[in-house]
């Protein structure tokens, strides 16, 4: 039961993903919601929150389902080809292994740039609240991670960063 509790705490960050994407989605059947929730991983959420606000809410559910299916398929195919091909590629080029692990940070950098750029009417059209949210979130995530609270770092940073962004926006609105 301790194991179960630990694994569940690791997943707490996912609670934020649905409500954060919901404003870009139209109401739809519970079945489609159930399927797209299955594919709502870190990577799918990150890409979706950068891309969906720029498209029409009417067709975004299809996009979210497509993203989830694509991510799941490539994950399964990647696992399968890794199991079949073994370490042939990495034996030939051993220095490539740590470099490949940098693909994920690089993807998050690209998505952050997109998110700052696409700061739309929902955030008052200004970039500084979004940039502030990012800085606060990064600081909170790093602090908790180093303190050994890895599983809380993403959800806590999500809440703290959002609060920071909102505060900066209020500050700006009150100046005018």
């Amino acid at each position, binding site marked *: 039961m301790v194991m179960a509790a630990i694994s569940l705490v690791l997943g707490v960050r996912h609670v934020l993903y649905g409500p954060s994407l919901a404003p870009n989605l139209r109401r739809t059947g519970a079945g489609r919601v159930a399927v797209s929730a299955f594919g709502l991983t870190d990577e799918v959420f990150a890409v979706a929150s950068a891309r969906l606000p720029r498209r029409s809410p009417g067709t975004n559910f299809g996009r979210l389902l497509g993203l989830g299916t694509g991510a799941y398929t490539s994950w399964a195919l990647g696992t399968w080809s890794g199991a079949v091909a073994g370490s042939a590629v990495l034996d030939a080029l051993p220095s*490539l292994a740590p470099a*490949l692990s940098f693909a994920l940070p690089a993807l998050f950098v690209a998505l952050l740039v997109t998110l700052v750029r696409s700061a739309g009417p929902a955030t008052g059209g200004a970039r500084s609240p979004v940039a502030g*949210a990012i800085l606060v979130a990064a600081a909170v995530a790093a602090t908790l991670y180093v303190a050994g609270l890895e599983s809380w770092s993403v959800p806590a940073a999500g809440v703290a960063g959002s609060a920071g962004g909102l505060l900066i926006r209020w500050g700006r609105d009150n100046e005018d």
Partner: protein
Amino acid sequence: MRTELLLLFLVVGAGNYLMRFLPLLWALRSASTGEGSETAGDRRLNRLLPYVGPSVVAALLVTSILPETRDGTELLRPGLALLPTLFIAVRSGNLGLTVLVGVLAYWLVSLPT
């Protein structure tokens, strides 16, 4: 032991799934029924949500870089590789190209000198 393990998988799997599904369902339902009748709390929440995406992605970036620096020595390599990655991300705005340049940059800075 085996049934215990299966039960563990079931509990963790169901819990993890419900943590994704229920908030999404709840948010979609309250958004479509609440027009005109939203409370002050709903309004505050709705103004907070646009910042959740950037905040979470920033946190994911930080936690995806830090595991390699656990021993406290190696912040230099990911730090150096981030510079060209950020440059290309800003210049091109292309996800695939940025990932490619990032991996290439990390590979170059971690080559034995």
